[in-house]
């Protein structure tokens, strides 16, 4: 018997990179995931520049002062603060992620009885504590960055 294999006609529907940013109707962690990524990228970019700028100290006082004056000004100061805020968020959320990824805070599996709870819901106290801590750090940092300098 001859079997006829029909060619499957489909239309690709992967969301692509837009799918990272579209949080949909999911929990807060879905949005925290996107922010974590963006913050990480921002910090990395700053860090690479930071290595070259502070590396100028080995060329003597003039080079150092020139490097410092090239990255001063209001906009650089605001950018620096944004990096500080990103680090506060990324670091504290990172603590939550490390705890979760080593399976330390998530508890034990339990039978799914309606209404279902998820591990993310069970550690939401930790999640929000981390976010509040990050917000406090950002406020403290903002006080130092903008009111004391």
């Amino acid at each position, binding site marked *: 018997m001859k079997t006829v294999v029909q060619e499957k006609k489909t239309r690709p529907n992967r969301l692509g990179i837009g799918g990272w940013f579209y949080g949909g109707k999911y929990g807060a962690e879905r949005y925290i995931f996107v922010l974590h990524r963006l913050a990480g990228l921002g910090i990395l970019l700053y860090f690479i520049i930071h*290595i070259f700028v502070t590396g100028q*100290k080995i060329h003597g006082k003039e080079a150092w002062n020139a490097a410092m004056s090239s990255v001063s000004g209001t906009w650089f100061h605001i950018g620096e603060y944004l990096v500080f805020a990103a680090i506060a968020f990324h670091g504290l959320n990172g603590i939550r992620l490390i705890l979760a990824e080593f399976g330390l805070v998530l508890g034990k599996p339990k039978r799914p009885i309606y209404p279902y709870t998820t591990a993310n819901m069970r550690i939401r106290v930790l999640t929000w504590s981390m976010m509040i801590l990050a917000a406090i750090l950002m406020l403290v940092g903002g006080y130092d960055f903008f009111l004391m300098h």
Partner: protein
Amino acid sequence: MRESTLWFWHLIAGIVIIFVLGIHIGVMHLDKIMQAIGIMSAGDVLSYADVLARAKTIAYLIIYLLLMWFALYHGFYGLRSMILEISMSKTAQAVVNWVIFLFGFGLAVYGTYAIIIGYTMANA
């Protein structure tokens, strides 16, 4: 090398960075608050004299080296994750792996050089 090894060090690096970067930010960026509550002595942390004074101590040498190495590893592993999550061919993935490794390694070499030269200069 299995991916779990790379990932494990990504997390370990994260833990190390939290402590070391905490010190670094406290000293360099929250300096006014630290000075106000009396943990640090007053002065401009960004003046060249202060930079050399810090670079002189062995504690800062270790802190800077640890911070730079672990932060570079953590950052570039994270960047690699993001890039590889965008689907691409095996060849492209290999290119991404090598470019990220060489770029990160180059930065680490330059940073280590700058920190060690800074240390010897300050102690000269």
